[in-house]
């Protein structure tokens, strides 16, 4: 059966356990610190904006696009679509058509019309 550990053995084991816990704790602190800076929002903002841009640029006139998004406001500024939480992310589109843009309550509707001559 198991032999009872003497005091020296117990101390050595404690030392190893302490080392492992210390390294993991330091790693976790650094990880959470970095995650706090980067944040998921920045990724979401970029992805939502770029999805909208690709849909908009490929759309033909007389098309309506409805998008659901959360925790961010989306605006159209000149030829740019801007997603905003704390910091904004904007991306420009080249669609030659007229664009009507309505955004409220996490829902954005884009309507694309033929340019009037």
């Amino acid at each position, binding site marked *: 059966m198991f032999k009872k550990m003497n005091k020296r053995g117990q101390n050595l084991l404690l030392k190893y356990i302490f080392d492992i816990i210390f390294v993991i704790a330091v790693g976790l602190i650094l990880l959470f610190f970095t995650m706090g800076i980067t944040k998921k929002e*920045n990724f979401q903002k970029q992805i939502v904006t770029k999805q909208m841009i*690709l849909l908009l640029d*490929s759309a033909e006139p007389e098309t309506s696009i409805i998008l659901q998004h959360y925790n961010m406001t989306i605006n159209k500024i*000149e*030829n740019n679509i801007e997603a905003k939480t704390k910091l904004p992310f904007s*991306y420009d589109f*080249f669609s*030659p058509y007229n664009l009507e843009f309505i955004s409220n309550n996490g829902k954005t509707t884009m309507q694309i019309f033929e340019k009037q001559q």
Partner: protein
Amino acid sequence: MKIKTKNKKAQLGHGILWIYRIILLILVSLVYVLIIYNMFYFKCDIRSAETVLLAKKTTNCLTNNGILDVKNFDNAMLKNCFSFNKDQLNEYYISAKLSYNDFSDKIKVGNAELEVLCGLKGKSPECISQSYYILAKNNTELKNAKLDLSISILKVEENYMNI
């Protein structure tokens, strides 16, 4: 006071313990660096999709049911195909070359320097070249023609994640 010196075996054990600690720290640091690297260098580059869309829009704009009117084939026509503002003109380059028989003409819009930077390593523009076989209408005469499109998009900052 008499200080007790460690015997050789104890010193060796102590050394091994430090090696173990260092290896453990290196391993944790490596995992950490890998996770952070993936987070910081997240790339969401949509320029290749944009170039394809731009080529499609350009062809649709220049031709009508596959027929291009040579009379209207000029830079103004290409510029009217899009609603680029001043800033955008530095980020895009579109050129279209029409050729049939002995005739050849090239129209362009945007920043011509981008074409030179195509294919460079690193944060260079995304480029695409496409050829279309179309009908060129010269007065009333229809001729088989080739339309070569060259499109470059810069927009480096927006397509590389920088947090």
